[in-house]
């Protein structure tokens, strides 16, 4: 398709539904909306700790995740079964 480099293309944009739009207005509005959304998210992040402090009165206390200490059975099962077999043989009077 032949392209015509023209500043008028920016100011006179026709949308699919036939609406006449201005590229500069779209750019300005678009940037304002993106900034508005992210500024609101920023403000929300700023007040979030204070909000949580207030909510702490009604919410259950937050416990940090505690790592469970390893249980005896977490050891190598091969060693455990070897020890059990040795103990069993010992009890049976077999070779030690």
């Amino acid at each position: 398709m032949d392209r015509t480099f023209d500043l008028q293309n920016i100011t006179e944009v026709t949308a699919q539904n036939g609406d006449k739009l201005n590229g500069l207005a779209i750019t300005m509005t678009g940037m304002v909306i993106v900034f508005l959304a992210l500024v609101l998210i920023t403000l929300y992040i700023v007040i979030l700790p204070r909000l949580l402090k207030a909510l702490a009165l009604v919410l259950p206390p937050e416990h940090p995740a505690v790592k469970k200490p390893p249980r005896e059975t977490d050891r190598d099962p091969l060693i455990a079964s070897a020890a059990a077999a040795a103990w069993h043989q010992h009890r049976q009077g077999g070779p030690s």
Partner: protein
Amino acid sequence: MQLFVEFYHTTGFGQFALGNLMMIVIGLFFIALAIIKDYEPLLLLPIGFGMIVGNIPYIDTMSLGVYDEGSVLSYIYWGVKQGVFPPLIFLGIGAMTDFSTMLSNPKLVLLGAAAQMGIFLTLLGALYIGFSGEEAAAIGIIGGADGPTAIFLSAALAPHLLGSIAIAAYSYMALVPVIQPPIMRLLTTRKERAIRMPQPRAVSQREKIIFPIVAFLIAAFIAPGSLPLLGMLFLGNLLKESTVTERLANSARNALIDVVTILLGFSVGASTQAGTFLTPDSLLIFGLGAASFTVATASGLLSAKFMNLFLKQKINPLVGAAGVSAVPDSARVVHMVGLEEDPDNHLLMHAMAPNVAGVIGSAIAAGVLWSVFL
């Protein structure tokens, strides 16, 4: 003998054109970049191989390519054409993303917004050249440096440019380590690049759980067009942070995103058949994409410098370049450039804040453009 000649005409050799050869060479180049240079291998490798597959010629009566109704490849490409794959990728990204640094230093979110300037200035450039409004919007989104968002918007507004836009977006994302550092060095002084930023504060689990819900409500109410992308992004993040759906989060960030990445990369690559891809418009799109990426990087950097005029605790302006949202590559590049000036200055965590904010910003920009040109 005549049978042999007839058979020869049905083979790829019989119908091979120079355009096919060029596209296969480009596909091989992508594969080489992925394997040798390790540039975005998860994307460039399937795309590169897809380009080779898409450029093997066949007779018209065979239904084989992505554009042939009923072909296997057309069913895979359906996910791209209908915009199904991008939200699924966002689900996986959400399940991988840690918003902690953003929550601990909220002013860095603004850098993610500033970097979206590239999208809108490129929209003007594309309009000036003579692209229609819908085409210009789809081309502009390349500046968001977000492949899924670029595919999502071009599938909705300019499906005939989808192949070129997707390839341009992913190429520039892969070339982040090449494109961004010179712009960073050009627009900052050594002293600025060596600025140290304080360690981010610890963020509670409760903050991390509430954030995706409220951030989604804010973004989706302002730009409903971003709903499929941001809905999935924040759902993925909630799956991760809630800690009660670890299995789902694991599937989203591993198996699901991997499957979708393969299908998306391969089918986008296969859509670049020489006949539809090698056009002057594709060249213009690649040029505009490069401009868009450059402007986005520069906008982020300059905005950080501007913010420093008012801040007591200065921001290292390099982190502004991460606002282009190529996650996590641009944050990694910021980190590397920062280390060149001061080997003990680790900027990665700080750069992740504008980086993820950029993902949100470019999805909102896509939503805005979609609603304007619908």
